[in-house]
Structure formats: C-alpha cells, structure tokens
C-alpha cells in the first residue's frame, strides 16, 4: 500500500490497488469499509476552479431565494390571474433549487477525493445453532405458558381475540345507510314537470327545435340524493325519424326522454349527434342509437338507456308519466 498526501492540506488517504476477485482477508474480518482511489486527485488549479463553480451555484441559490421573497412581496397575484406571480415565484424557486442541487453534485464530483470503497456483505441468515436456539426458546416459552395443556384457556383466548375486533367493525355500520330500494328511486313521478337543469324553468312543447337536446330534471329537485340518477335528456326528433314503436309510445309529439346516466359507469352522457341520432358517452365511449330505443351500438355499456315516459299537460308543459320503469345508471347486484 502506498501513501499519498492529498492536496490542500487534506488528511492523508490511502491509495490502494483495485481489489481483485475474492475479498481481502483483512476487510472480511473487520467488516469495515476500505477505500482505494481510482484516479489522481485534482491539481490545485482544478480544485480552485471547481470551488468557484460550486460557490457560483450556491451564490445563484442565494440570489434566487431573495428574488423569491421580493417577488412574493411585490408582484400582484391578481395580474393576469396570478400568471406573473406564478412565473416569478416558481421560476426563482426552481432556479434556486437547481443551483443548490447542482452545487452539491459538482462539489461531490470534483472536490471530494476520487475514492471507491469496498465493504463486505454478510450472510443474512444466522448460523444453524443460533437458529435452533431461537426456535427452542420460542417453543419453550409456548410450553411454559401451557398453550398445549390448558385447553379451555386456549379456546377462550382464541375466542376472545377473535371477537374483540367485532365491536370495532360493527361501529363502521353507521358509515352509511343500507341501499334498500333507494337505487331504484330517481325523483321522477307521475305529473312532475321536466325542468331545465340550470334555470329550473319547466320545458314547454315547442321549446326544442328539431334536432335539439336538453338536460332536464324533475320539477322541484333539491335533494342531493336525486342528483345522481335523475338527470334526463329530452330530445326532439323530426317527424318519422323515430324508428321504434315503443319509443314513440313513451314519447310525446316526437319528443323522447332518456336517462342521462350511462348504464355502464354512470357518467352523464349527452354527446348527441342530431343527424345520426347517435349518443356517445365521453367517459368510455359507449354509443347508443337514440332512434332505436337507445340500443347500444358500440362500447362497454350492456343495456340501453332507460326511457322516461312523458306527455304534454294541458298547459303545454312536458310532464313525466311516472318514474323510470327500471333502475337507472350502472348495473349492480340487486338489479333485476
């Protein structure tokens, strides 16, 4: 082993040979790391240059951190929605972080001694006698406790440990109500007017042009429970465009109402194409033919959208003939 003194008054370090295969016996015994150098240390000039590099980077970090504080205090968050603020704060912080990080890395790469260290790995398992001893201790304890002998104790212990989580689990019961029949209920009922989702005004015959579509809700909807399943689309067809007798029957004056909630995953669908009468779901692209009972023509949805029976009341407003005849929205176990 040769000795060389590091530049710049660093403590002496050993420069060793590159280790060959097989662990060095001395290292193996001690378990400590052993270092060796792979290349020459930097010259004083190189070292000086590296120091300036690192110092510059840290300096940028200082400047940018101060810039951040100044920007925080001076740049209004309300100019262009805070865009300037975001650029100034984010930009200065990012530069500060990159500079500090870069400083550390250049420091490590250029100013630390170029050493490699070698260290032993150890077997992860213990020696066999140690293993046996541990096993014996564990089993002897079991024996001391008498888990094999005291049968009643053992059974009641298992019972007690098995049942004590039960109170903790049962307490989760009140996290929510039981579903019951609530998934079949939507807030639509006989005679309820169809009202606009945004304005909450009732929809009159003639409000929609041919090829029009509108999102409607049951009159007086407020309940948050109604909200997920009640959204319905009212579509107006041209004369003779509806191709299903059943669909015509449930509709009124070439208007039909269908659930807006996809039968696949419950997204509100209303990407309606007025010429093809296709309706597309934006989430998973199920496609329904609205002129043919909302039949599924593409995508993962398995069932047509449920149709809501509608009629026109004497004042000319659209009203529901009743609730949907089947559960609205995605499938679930209890659904028939």
């Amino acid at each position, binding site marked *: 082993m040769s000795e060389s003194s590091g530049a710049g008054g660093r403590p002496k370090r050993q420069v060793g040979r590159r280790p060959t295969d097989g662990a060095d016996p001395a290292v193996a015994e001690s378990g400590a790391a052993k270092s060796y150098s792979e290349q020459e240390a930097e010259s004083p000039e190189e070292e000086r240059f590296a120091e300036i590099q690192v110092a510059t980077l840290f300096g940028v970090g200082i400047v940018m951190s101060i810039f951040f504080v100044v920007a925080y205090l001076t740049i209004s968050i309300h100019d262009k929605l805070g865009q300037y603020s975001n650029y100034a704060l984010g930009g200065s912080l990012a530069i500060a972080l990159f500079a500090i990080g870069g400083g550390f890395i250049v420091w490590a790469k250029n100013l630390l001694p170029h050493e490699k260290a070698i260290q032993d*790995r150890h077997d992860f398992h213990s020696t066999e006698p140690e293993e046996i001893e541990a096993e014996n201790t564990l089993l002897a304890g079991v024996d001391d406790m008498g888990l094999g002998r005291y049968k009643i104790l053992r059974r009641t212990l298992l019972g007690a440990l098995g049942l004590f989580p039960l109170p903790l689990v049962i307490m989760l019961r009140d996290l929510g109500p039981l579903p019951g029949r609530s*998934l079949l209920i939507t807030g639509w009922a006989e005679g309820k007017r169809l009202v606009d989702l945004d304005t909450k005004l009732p929809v009159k015959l003639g409000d929609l042009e041919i090829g029009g579509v509108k999102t409607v809700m049951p009159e007086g909807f407020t309940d948050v429970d109604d909200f997920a399943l009640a959204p319905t689309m009212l579509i107006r067809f041209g004369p003779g465009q509806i191709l299903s007798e059943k669909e015509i029957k449930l509709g009124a004056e070439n208007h039909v109402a269908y659930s807006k909630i996809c039968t696949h995953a419950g997204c509100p669908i209303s990407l309606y194409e007025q010429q093809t009468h296709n309706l597309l779901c934006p989430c998973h692209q199920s496609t329904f033919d609205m002129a043919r009972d909302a039949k599924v023509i593409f995508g*993962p949805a398995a069932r047509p959208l449920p149709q809501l029976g509608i009629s026109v009341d004497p004042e000319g407003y659209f009203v529901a003939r009743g609730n949907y005849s089947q559960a609205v929205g995605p*499938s679930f*176990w209890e659904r028939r």
Partner: protein
Amino acid sequence: MSAPKNSDDATGPAPTRPENQGAAEKATRTTLKYVDDRFGSANFLKRSMDKVFPDHWSFMLGEIALYSFVILLLSGTYLTLFFHASQQPVVYHGSYQPLRGVQMTEAYASTLHISFDVRGGLLMRQIHHWAALLFVTSIVVHMFRVFFTGAFRKPRTVNWHIGTILLILGILEGFCGYSLPDDLLSGTGLRIAYSVAESIPVVGTYVCYFLFGAKYPGTDIISRLFIIHVLLIPGILLALIAAHMMILWHQKHTDFPGVGKTEDTVIGTKFYPGFFLKTNGFFFMVFGMVTALSAFAQINPVWLYGPYNAGQVSAGSQPDWYILFLEGSLRMMPNWETHIWHHTISWNILIPGVIIPGIMFNLIALYPAIESWVTKDTGYHNLLDRPRDVPVRTGLGVMSLVFYMVLVTGGANDILASTFHWSLQATTWVLRFLLIALPPLSFNITKRICLGLQHEDEKKLHHGVESGIIRRLPSGAYVEADIPLPADKAAVLAKQIGYDHGHNGHAAITSGNGHQAVDEAAEGITRPVAIAAKVRGKLEAFWDETRETVPDSQPHPED
C-alpha cells in the same frame, strides 16, 4: 459485530483526539459524545457513515420516489392550511371572475381560493400535483429497473413486496387527492369509481353506501377522502417507506456484475461524505424539476373544469396517468353482462375495473416466488442480471410493459381520435386487437433480441472485435483479423456472461440463472404434485432454452 475500526487504517493504533482543534470541531465532538453517552450511538454512526453504496445512475430512480414523497409531505401540509374538505354548498365570491356567483362546494371554493387568492398558492398546488405524478411514475420506473435486473430475488423479496404495496398505495393516494377539489373532472372520476365498486357482486352497493355515506354523491365523501388522503395512507406510506429503506440499508444495495464485483462485497461510494452530498444534491434537483414544471406547465386547472355537477360532463374526461390503465381497460372491454336469478353481474366493469388490476398487482407481488419456483433458484443474489442474460424474464417484463402501455393508450383513445381525426370506434378496435396481439409478439421479439445480444457477447469474448485489418493468409485468402478485447473489457464481459450467481459452486453455468438442479424422481411424490412437477419441469426447460452456444469449430487466423 467486531469493534469499530478506522476504515482507512484498520490495523493502526487506537485513535486519539487531537490536542489543538477549532471551536467547531470541539463542539461537534462534544455533541457526539453527549449523544453517545446516552444512546451508545458512536458505533452505529461510524458504520452508517462508512456504508458503501454502489454507483450506477439507475440506482437513483427509487430516490426520485423518496424525494417526491418528501416534497408531497411539505407541499401537502401547506395546502391543508387553506383547504376545506367540505361539501357544504357556498356561492363563490373570490377573484376568479368566470365563476363568481356560482354555487359550489366549499372544497372547490377553497381550491379556487388557494389558486387565485393565496400568493404562491397556485404554485404550491401545482408542485403537489406534479410531485404526485412523479412519485407514482418514479415508483413504476424503479420497479421496472428492479425487475429487469433481477434485484427482487432473495434476499430482497420482502422489499419487492413492500414496493408493490407502496405502488398500490401511491395510486390510491393519488386518486384520493385528485378527487378532493370536487371539480367536474374529478367528480366524474369519482362517479366511475363508485360504479366500479357498485359492480362487485353481492356487496357492491353496500360498499358504496358505506364509503359515500349515502346514495351517490352524498355529502360525506370529500371529508372522508380527505382524512384518508392526509392521514391514513400517508401514515402507512411513511411506515412502509421507512421499512423499505431500513431493509435496503441492512441488506446493502445490489450491484451489476463486473471486475472486482463479487457476491460477497459491495464497491462504491461511502455514505458520508460522497453519497451524502450527491443524494442531497439530487433531492434539490428533484425539487427543482418539480418546481420548474409547476412554474411553467399548468396542471389540473380546476377553475376551467368547473364545480362538480352530476348532470354535467366534459369531453375528454380522463384521470391522472396512473389510473389511465384502468380507464383504458374499461374503455376497451366488450359489453358483457349476466342476468341470473334476478341479479346482475356486470362483467363490463368487474373485469376491467376489479379483476384485471387484481390480477396485475397479484402477479407483480407473486413474481419473485413464481420465478424461483420455476428456476428452482433459491440462492442469494447480490449481483444483478443483465436483462439480456435472462431472456424469458426480460421478455415477460417487456410483454407486461407493452400490455400496460396499450391499456394506458386506450385511456386516451378519444384524445387520440380527436387530435388525429381518427374514428373513435376504429381506434378502440385497433387497441383491442393490439392488447391481445402485441404482448406475445413483444415477448418473442425481446427474447430473440436478448439471445442475439448474448451471441454477440460470446463472439466478442471468444473471437474479439472486428479490427478492420485485412490479412492475407498463406493460402492466398483474405480475412479480416479480429483483435481480442482489451483485457479489462474482456474481464468485465466474462464476469457479466459467465457469472455464477448461486452460492453452490457451479463450475460453468450455461443458463446464467444459477439454478440448483433437484432430482425430482428421487423423491417419492404423489400424483397432483407430479403434475405440478411436470409443469414446473416444462417451464424450467422453457426458461433455460436461452443461451445459444457459439460454435467454435471454425478455423480462425488468430488461433
């Protein structure tokens, strides 16, 4: 453990404290002594500082995840100071004009407040979101590195399992956080998540009602997700990350095979000061990258999405990328549904939303066990495999990567269709086809490539590299002379190719996977076991049908 020794001078005399030292040094020594007197920590400290870490860039991928997590904790804590996890309806009166007067939940309103009325709030939100994307991304990249190099093998199987759980928790944590602002996009995502849970046979609706506290959407989900997002999952993540690191620390890092590299030693940089400086620097770099993205690339502009409303939806409703594979599988699934005995099983959600991710994560978790069962390799492995040396594993990895990427692409099929004006339906059909066709194809291609690279290596080692020098043989023929590899490169290559990974003293391992042969026939085995053994034998044969031997019979000018 033996007594602590100075690593630089293992055999030297006992160390002494120098006489004249500066105030800082004195203070340092005093502090260390104070701590050591109470905890006996000097030995531990010394060993820790001397801990050796191998140098390879790919070993830093996991650090990206670690540092992203630190950034997430910092930025997340800041956000909780302003965020109100409540679905209480309020009317917005903040400074974002296009939403003023709109009714929304407090969660959404407070998110707008952070974005437009808290200085640096938008930056912090974006830092949190970009860091979350990088967190999951780096976990995935890190896991692929571990997979392809075989770093998951004994003794590191438990750390692989912890990593798998970290991935799953990271995805869940991300999804909860993405849902918190209660905007139109995340609300749509939550609606789909609800539907996925609803599709579970028998208990689905109960799970939904207990989770949401009512029929969807209810009024509890945001506050429940909040506590899951800021306490429950981060707590588990923190504990598991600590365990992951401690196991890594204890078992020491793996390394690639090479000269001087053995199963029994680790070569690299000492933790202190070299690795310490570098890893600190890297933390700042990760933080800098996240901040730079947050300064110049807008993420999750919830003010444009609008508040959640069950009657509204936007085109191109996508989740964050780590959920995109689920979205893709939901989009590509055929519309199967079964109605039996007045009950509905909706396979169209159950399979892509529950069963496929279930199988995927289970396969990830079980893979180390499956591989060691097939290869009968139960040895310790501290040295890594080069991917080419284990063609079947590499093939399986590429195959699952391709499968996953097709799913992710499927999650963006509408964006692709509208960007390139493709037919949405045709895009989906092509992706359905690719999902089935590409994985086996990619397995075969990868395996071929690996074998080709092996062949190339053997040739290099045995015959050297082409020199460009043409020689004339005594017979008059011209040949190009191969020059042998330089000694150091040859040594590295020899190590890489022929390394005996097992501890069982195989003289020459042809398959490169260091398995231990066990004579099945010698053990009296019953019939079902025999079938399993047969399967195992076939699989093992498939696994080993790897290295092509290079015929060395040709006369060679150098010989």
